[in-house]
């Protein structure tokens, strides 16, 4: 069933055509049509790719920082139940505070350098990672805890050998949300406190009235998002094959 549905393809085509007609009607550089944007992609390819590189590097650093700190913390809080339960409202509170609201604050603490942005990205990625890791290790099957006991594992060994692997499927879900968040916050923070990156590029395009160049940048952001999503999906299928094998319905 890999046949391409031609009628389905009509939807994006119709929207592109309408967009083009609209831009021809208004005939202003402030509302460029798809043809102009495509030309602009060809023209600005090198700049966009190098700026996007800065953005992705920072997003990756922030995400890595969040993984290294939040996954162990989540498992710890899930295993040491009383502490986890006491801190649950705190985690909920943090989850309601949108990451962009933190941007000006971090700007005060850490200036406008790379680290300020990495810290904000890490904060944004932390919330879904911590919540999902905690939720997974908290609601672990009781039988697994008994296995750990009968093997006489220490607390640390239980967390490492039992809790971490069995939480991985849910951590993967959290990681997917966290990756999306870190990309989003990375670009947003660049637009607000910027030196380089795709966010700066977008701002500069607006300031010089090159809306077509800006839309070309947005097209690349979307492309990168799609590629990363596909990559994560592949990785998940490969690394967590045991989970999908177990949950797949018996045929």
């Amino acid at each position, binding site marked *: 069933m890999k046949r391409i*549905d031609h*009628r*389905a*393809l*009509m*939807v*994006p085509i119709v*929207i592109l055509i309408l967009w083009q007609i609209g831009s021809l009607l208004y005939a202003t550089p*402030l*509302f460029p049509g798809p043809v102009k944007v495509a030309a602009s992609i060809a023209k600005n390819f090198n700049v966009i790719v190098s700026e996007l590189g800065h953005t992705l590097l920072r997003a990756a650093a922030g995400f890595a920082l969040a993984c290294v700190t939040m996954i162990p913390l989540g498992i710890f809080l899930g295993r040491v139940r*009383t502490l986890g*339960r*006491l*801190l*649950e*409202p*705190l985690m909920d*509170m943090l989850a*309601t*505070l*949108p*990451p*962009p*609201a*933190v*941007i*000006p*604050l971090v*700007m*005060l*603490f850490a200036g406008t350098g790379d680290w300020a942005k990495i810290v904000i990205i890490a904060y944004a990625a932390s919330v879904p990672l911590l919540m999902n890791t905690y939720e997974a290790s908290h609601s672990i099957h009781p039988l697994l805890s008994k296995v750990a006991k009968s093997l006489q594992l220490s607390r640390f060994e239980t967390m490492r050998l039992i809790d971490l692997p069995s939480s991985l499927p849910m951590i993967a879900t959290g990681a997917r949300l966290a990756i*999306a968040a870190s*990309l*989003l*916050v990375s*670009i*947003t923070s660049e*637009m*607000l406190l910027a030196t380089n990156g795709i*966010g700066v590029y*977008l*701002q500069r*395009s*607006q300031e010089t*009235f090159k*809306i077509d160049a*800006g*839309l070309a*940048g*947005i097209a690349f*952001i*979307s492309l*990168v*998002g*799609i590629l*990363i*999503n596909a990559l994560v999906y592949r990785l998940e299928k490969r690394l967590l094959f045991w989970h999908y094998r177990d949950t797949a319905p018996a045929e």
Partner: protein
Amino acid sequence: MRHWSDKLRVPFSIGLVVLVWQTVYLLGIVSEKYFPSIVSVAQSFWAMIVSGDIPAADLKTFGRALVGLAGAGVLGIALAILSDLYPSFGKGFRYISDVVQPIPPAAFVPMAVFSLGLGIKLYAFVIILVTIWPPFLNGVAALQSVSGVQLNTGRMLGCSNRELLWQIKLPAAMPEIFAGLRYAATISLIAVIVSEMLAGRDGVGFMIFKKAFALRTADVFALMFVVAINGVMLNGLVNVLRRAIVGWHIGMMERSE
């Protein structure tokens, strides 16, 4: 049987925050210019309430988030229904959602400012463009996975296709659509704050940015608190609506436990 920690957890969490905060403040690890005491944050919060700055700004911000969320909810559900009626349209629209979804709300703002101005049109456009996806995607998935038993029951009772959609499929899909709406509420608040920071005219987002540049840290913390309250309120509103519309579902879930 409630664990003792259940009763104490909210005060404990708040107490811990206050304790850590004041310890950091009193030890002077971070200069007071950047890290004010809770007392001064509370004072500036109160001062901004009395002066009318916070109510005025928050009315705008919350109103924008609400308008955007309502628009995104209605449009998202409408598109989901349309996709269910015309599968080809649904598949085609999925291409669009795949392409638009990864783009952060902030990226749209500078591009749209010239065509849409700085008014409600800009906010509505940005918010709807980023918040429409959770209700839409959840709606499509839920409408598709309505169980055959329910559908056949409807057919046996003589429902036409249209009645089947309105009386059986849509109510059955509502709980999942509300899960999407709850997620959308958070995103819409983020989108409003970011747009206000970038458009730079009014609202809580703009105030945060202005105060941060003026190094009025206590004010910034107070405004962040306002943002968090907004998040809770918006969530609460969606929950009230959820109880009103899919209360039967919540009752069912609680009984099965």
